[in-house]
């Protein structure tokens, strides 16, 4: 038996197993790459070679697009990645501190607002950077901020972002979160606020909201809901804000402002 040669066509086990495998493979391939795709009427599947390429997953253009539809307003063009503004230098932070002197009237001398403007102390650098870019490009509009951002260079924005990120943030808000913050409303497509804005997790580009004045939060949610603010990528916040009830907006704004704890 030890003399029995296995890898030869004379061996019945070899013939049967290799033959059956090839048969199964060829049959499955014929159905999967030729027959099933041919049942489709799209032009990408017409003809045997097209059918095979489509079924194999060769990248191809699906629709012959003419000119893409452009929105009637400016959209944000900022691309953020998780670590793009990490490792700020002290030089950058120092430049940012100098530049920030023109921001203190509204955002406070150390980034803590007393004028219902957003707190910037401890804010993620990517958030400050993105909003400044959007104010400059017109993707986000504000009577005060749009002119302020007009003459900032890219490096200025990075420096300001680095400076504000280096400041001690407002006290963290924890506990007793209202349902909209902790759970969202999944069936209305509203994720929990805390999954992006702090409390549970943070997502790139989403601001840290702890300590944010309630009037500001409410105003922004209203602006997202009616579309006057539209620098959120893929309408994320607009879709959320449109589905929130006024009570939910009040609850979220009050909780992040910390008033629930006072």
């Amino acid at each position, binding site marked *: *038996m*030890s003399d*029995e*040669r*296995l*890898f030869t066509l004379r*061996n019945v*086990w*070899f013939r049967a*197993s*290799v033959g059956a*495998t090839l048969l*199964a*493979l060829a*049959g*499955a*391939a014929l*159905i*999967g*790459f030729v027959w*099933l*795709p041919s049942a489709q009427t799209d032009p990408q599947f017409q003809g045997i070679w097209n059918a*095979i390429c*489509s*079924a*194999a*997953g*060769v*990248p191809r253009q699906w629709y012959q697009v003419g000119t893409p539809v452009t929105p009637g307003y400016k959209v944000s063009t900022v691309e953020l*990645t*998780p*670590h793009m503004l990490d490792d700020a230098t002290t030089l950058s932070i120092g430049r940012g501190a100098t530049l920030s002197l023109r921001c203190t009237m509204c955002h406070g001398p150390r980034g803590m607002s007393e004028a219902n403007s957003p707190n910037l102390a401890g804010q993620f650098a990517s958030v400050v950077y993105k909003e400044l870019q959007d104010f400059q490009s017109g993707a986000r509009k504000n009577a005060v901020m749009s002119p302020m951002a007009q003459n900032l260079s890219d490096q200025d924005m990075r420096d300001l972002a680095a400076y504000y990120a280096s400041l001690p943030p407002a006290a963290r808000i924890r506990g007793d*979160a209202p349902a909209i913050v*902790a*759970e969202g*409303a*999944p*069936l209305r497509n509203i994720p929990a606020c805390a*999954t992006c804005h*702090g409390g*549970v*997790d*943070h997502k790139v580009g989403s601001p840290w909201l702890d300590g944010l004045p309630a009037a500001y939060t409410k105003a922004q949610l209203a602006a997202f809901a009616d579309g006057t603010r539209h620098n959120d990528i893929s309408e994320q916040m607009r879709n959320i804000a449109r589905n929130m009830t006024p009570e939910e907006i009040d609850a979220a704004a009050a909780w992040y402002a910390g008033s629930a704890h006072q």
Partner: protein
Amino acid sequence: MLNNKRLVLAHFWLAFVLFGVALLLGAWQMLVRSPLHPWLHDPELYYRSVTEHGTVMGYAFPTLIAMGFGYAVTELALKRPLVGVRWAWLGFVLLAAGAVTASVPVALGRASVLYTFYPPMIGNVFYYLGVVLVVVGSWVWVALMGVNLAAWKRENRGKPVPLAMFATTAGAYLWGWTAVGAAIEVLFQILPVALGWRSTIDAGLARVFFSWTLHAIVYFWLMPAYIAYYTIIPRAIGGRLYSDAMARISFILFLVVAMPIGLHHLFTDPQVGSGFKFVQSVFTALVAVPTLLTVFTICASVEIAGRLRGGKGVFGWIAKLPWQNPQMLAVALSFVMLGFGGAGGLINMSYQLDQPIHNTQWVTGHFHLIYGGAIVIMYFAIAYDLWPQLTGRALANWRLMRWQLWLWFVGMIVTTFPWHLVGLMGMPRRMAYFDYSDPALHAQASLVAISAVGGLILVISAILFFVVLWQGHRSPAQAPEEYRFSTPVHESPVLPAALNGFALWLALMVALTITNYGYPIAQLLATPDTAVPAIPIGAPR
């Protein structure tokens, strides 16, 4: 004769201790997600627990069982001392160290990426290093199975390899090859990002590599159970194995077609062509063949036992079976769960039928029923069968064993049947929170609550399992009978070379990997701009 009892016992005990911890986590997850418990307000805790549960139950627990059982089979079936005992201990140490290394970052919330990794999420580097250690430790075992078989063959030229060893080696080779996919993913895609050398990752390609491992790993988990069906059960219930050749063909078929089928996990992924999905769907269907062969052969073997005990008529032999014997009970309960789970699996693997249940709780129900049910109950049976050999003390409390097996069966049915139903109702898997007060989800609430009760029953069963093993260690010492595996009805002194070795089958396995995975992988590697920024999980925030 077992020479390395401590080696085998160490594997089994570490496996069962880890299993106990992960089982508690699983039961807790079911409770906190159910309407019986208020919302945690922190999904991260839930995903942390899911990651640990999956990592232990998917990687550490079954691997340790397969290794421990494999070493036992090597000595008991080949009737010669294990070659490479030091290497075996090294493998064990690697596994234990890997389990700890991976678990620490998970416990700290630094790697809540679930055991299937899900790039572009990237957790702490030590999590992945721990998993690598587990896999490397298991590869030591794969090599040792091959080495021991070769050593035996040199001394026994031309003789048939004992079935238990043949099957164990088939399982080892299957694991050795199937682990390569995830190993490539972790070593070349995930680790460079986790170490901070790169910031982007091709998530689609990573998913394809993982699917290479993802389905055949299930058959690796299943191998010890199937080996027990063929080589322990017929002997334990006083019967004969119906067909030795059928058993070998089943294990060979698993080796060849269990691996190049993982794309059925990616039916809704856009980065793989539909043609390859269909081909792999067909090969997935072929895996039903060795399972059906096994069900037939084992039922026939059990019938032999019933008739030897005086059973008559078409069904009369069933009543005559030794139902008081835990092994008989285990195989019967295992087959019931295998039947239901297998039927659900046929739906999962069908390209079209999969659509309504893809990524729903149905899938979780399916693999818990097959793996947690049909397979793990046989792990218990293997432990019950081997414990007297390992400890030199009898396991006499059959009544408690039967209670344990029944509770496991009932618990798993109560857990998984509602999961299948809520899956059909559209409940997604991998969710930490459901608002059952919402009218759209309200109908699912009672089913989810029932499944959480199932989890509690499973915990009670596991406690009984530990009590049985502990009683075994405490009972008076007595020399065990010489261990033997089941004998077939017809023992053939010679076997065709194809049924006595693996060369042909390994060649077919690798060839099918190339035909079924070659193009999708090559295409994704060649397509530019497919990488996305990695999402760090559990980074300080």
